């Protein structure tokens, strides 16, 4: 297996309370150094709750955000984020809100032509043929091309967003909550389409979502993000069934499942830590029933706890 994508110590820190001159008042570490490998043809799921840094991570991957530290390698070569015409050909992004990712004042044809013209310098006839081919594979009718975005439903607009990403002919797609704005019946259509396209074009997916069940259904491996750091990484079928990290277990137990009685898996008063004033050591320790003094003193790494195919950043993993 060859590597499609490699993240090396990728991290992002945002200044808080900027001033015109001098240093900002504080810093928030949105993403702690993350190192991850994604194999070609794989779907890697990234799950986490709001504010855990999933979107920041995704935007760094596609060059929309400059990392504070570390770099991204695509098929062995470092990603140069300076020229959009270069990185757009290698990695593409599908947005969460399908309607707002389409310019309301452009027709679908204009939107579809932009990547073909700017990234690949195609001629008009070539573009025409390519758009027809792509629209065919995402099950959209060609007559849609001369309409404006507001005329489409969420599911159709998301297909257009996927079609645009395909037009760039990148081999890696970052899917940032691609179905969470859609109704459940449409959500399944889009997920199945993504699975078909992956086979057809040999794509590699980074699938970002807060919906554990969706991630489990479509991914090969899953990385669980908490407070800007990967706390657990493992095969999709294992991560939620047999979690190592207490946070992963909390997530899995919180998801409403038919046939499981309603219980609050953690104390009702618990609150998330304050990003401006993070706890020392493990960020989860204030919510963790297994926390000890060591958790406050040291920061666990993803190599701290390991079983066969699973890794977790925890001193007291659940396998003990």
């Amino acid at each position, binding site marked *: 297996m060859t590597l499609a994508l490699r993240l090396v110590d990728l991290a992002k820190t945002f200044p808080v309370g900027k001033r015109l001159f001098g240093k900002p008042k504080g810093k928030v570490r949105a993403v702690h150094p993350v190192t991850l490998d994604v194999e070609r043809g794989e779907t890697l799921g990234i799950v986490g709750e709001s504010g855990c840094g999933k979107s920041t991570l995704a935007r760094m991957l596609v060059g929309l955000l400059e990392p504070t530290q570390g770099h991204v390698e695509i098929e062995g070569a470092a990603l140069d984020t300076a020229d959009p015409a270069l990185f757009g050909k290698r990695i593409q992004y599908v947005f969460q809100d399908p309607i707002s*990712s389409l310019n309301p004042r452009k027709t679908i044809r204009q939107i579809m032509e*932009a990547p073909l013209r700017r990234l690949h310098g195609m001629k008009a006839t070539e573009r025409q043929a390519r758009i027809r081919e792509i629209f065919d594979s995402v099950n959209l009718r060609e007559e849609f091309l001369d309409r404006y975005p507001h005329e489409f439903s969420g599911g159709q607009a998301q297909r257009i967003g996927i079609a645009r990403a395909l037009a760039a002919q990148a081999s890696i797609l970052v899917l940032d909550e691609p179905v969470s704005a859609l109704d*459940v019946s449409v959500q399944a259509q889009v997920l199945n389409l993504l699975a078909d396209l992956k086979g057809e074009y040999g794509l590699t997916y980074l699938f970002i979502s807060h919906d554990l*069940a969706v991630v489990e259904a479509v991914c090969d491996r899953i990385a669980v993000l908490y407070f800007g750091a990967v706390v657990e990484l493992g095969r999709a079928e294992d991560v939620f069934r047999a979690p190592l990290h207490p946070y992963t277990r909390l997530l899995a137990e919180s998801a409403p*499942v038919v046939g499981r009685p*309603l219980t609050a898996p953690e104390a009702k008063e618990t609150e998330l830590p304050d990003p401006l004033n993070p706890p020392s050591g493990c960020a989860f320790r204030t919510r963790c029933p297994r926390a000890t003094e060591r958790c406050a003193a040291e920061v666990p790494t993803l190599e701290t706890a390991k079983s066969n195919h699973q890794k977790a950043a925890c001193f007291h993993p659940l396998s003990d």
Partner: protein
Amino acid sequence: MRRFLALLARNRLALLGLVVMGLVVLLALVTPWLPLKPPNVTNTSDKFLPPFSEGALLGTDHLGRDLLSRLLWGTRLSLAVGFAAAAIAATLGAAIGVVAGYYGGRVDNVVMRGVDMLMAFPYILLALAIVAALGPGLFNALIAVAAVNIPFFARNIRGVTVGIAHKEFVDAARLSGLSDARIIVSEVLPNVVPVIVIAMSTTVGWMILETAGLSFLGLGSQPPQADLGSMLGEARSAHITQPHTSVVPGVMILIIVMAINLLGDGVRDALDPRLRSGALSRPMAATQVARDHVPPEPRAEGVLTLTDLETQFHVGKRTFRAVNGVSLHVAPGECLGLIGESGSGKSVTALSVMGLVASPPGVITGGSAQYKGQELIGARYGKLRQLRGDRVSYIFQDPLATLHPLYKVGDQLIEAIRVHHPVGRRAARERALGLLRDVRIPNPESRIDAYPHEMSGGMRQRVGIAMALANDPDVIIADEPTTALDVTVQAQILSVLSDLRRERGLAIVFITHDFGVVAQLCDRAAVMYAGRIVEQGTTEQILNHPRHPYTALLMKCVPELGAGRRRLEAIPGLPPAVDRLPEGCAFADRCPKVQPDCRAGEIVLRQVGDHAARCLHPVERAREEAAQ
């Protein structure tokens, strides 16, 4: 464009402004070809002729020049200068604003502080200073007026651009390989143009006035050339004895500026999407009721009972049947789940109960809703208001949108209590603290004085629940209260609601699209599709043995945790638009079991096995029946 003109024409005053302005512009355009006397030829023997004199329709000025001719030539000049100044100010201002807004950060800071400095001077002083530096003359006055107005455009456009530059389609364009310059021109600018047009249409009149002001002071057009301001200026000395010399240009200025302002307001209203959607027309205090038949008697017992409720939206000639004969009931201590996709009518059903659907365009056209035997549909506003939030309260999806951002959460809770109960502030505050404790907010003593933005989403939703509980209601209608929350927070909120229901005997109507939530919280469930209930029964019956194909398929669409990696079932197609509902079953076009009779006529909600479904060919309980 046609739609824009139609909207503009609906505003009578704007239409008047358009007609008057059209006439003035037309006159100014054809002036060179009109049989007028030369405007600058003096004839002192005929000075100060009154209006309607022979050979001088509007009279003459102090040098005997024909006022009509001077007026038309002057209007031509004033309009040209005003429009040119507006165009220059708009172009430069918009360019500055777009660049500052798009790049943000330091560029924005430096540029906008410069603009602020320009704005810090009183504008007439600044204009005078510019003219003083450049020397008097119409062209210099034009530059001065344009320069003075640049900050207005720059600030306006910058604000809009900041919003657009962070939209996802700009990121998408960047990923499509567009450079910054191209993004500004092809992505940002088209979305800013309406704002530029609005800003221009409301400021042209102002700029004509400013140019006239400078000319009046002798700094604009130089004699003998006439513009409206210089005409006024020259007439000033004869103001008392020969009033017509100042009245003539004065009236013209009045006409022009009034016409432009009326037109500008109309253009703004027609272009502004918020105003277009009718945001300015205030909705009525309670939904309009227009029932053409006698409301039916309730067929079920409950603290809240809806019978054949119908709510429609009347937009233009189209009628959207959002709620189409819904009957529901909920008993004390019971939780009813209302399941449906977006557009299925579940939220409108909930809002109709207390007359909270915005009217216009919403109208309740039939059915009844009874709270403990009291009819709510068509009840007096006073009675509805007394019940709202006291006996029947709501929890909405987005607590950030329902809490007032400028008041402390405690004050909002106290207000909710005191509206319905004559208690003192101190007692109400005690009660508010108790409520915050009830919804398990840590540290209620300090949180009571927090503003909504200082709390996390989960904490805000707890405040929303506390607000709904403030007056110990009998019924809570919760519209997707946990959809916007994270799973761990959702689990906490659901268990808080579940506890409260048990402790207080609350009846809850819980609207959601999540079967897992229904399974965990609700006793009974109803599934809605295209404005109707298609299946109703106990949670166990619906989840384990769905009879309507829609319910069965919808459940298969939802991935469930622990089921492993697989291909999901999908329902092909989209729900029908509720203004063009098909004959018969609304789900027929997407249904794998569809038969010709499904499209033939009205299908009723009937008993199928142990519960009710609106289907002629329900899903069989194959496994169980085979086993028996």
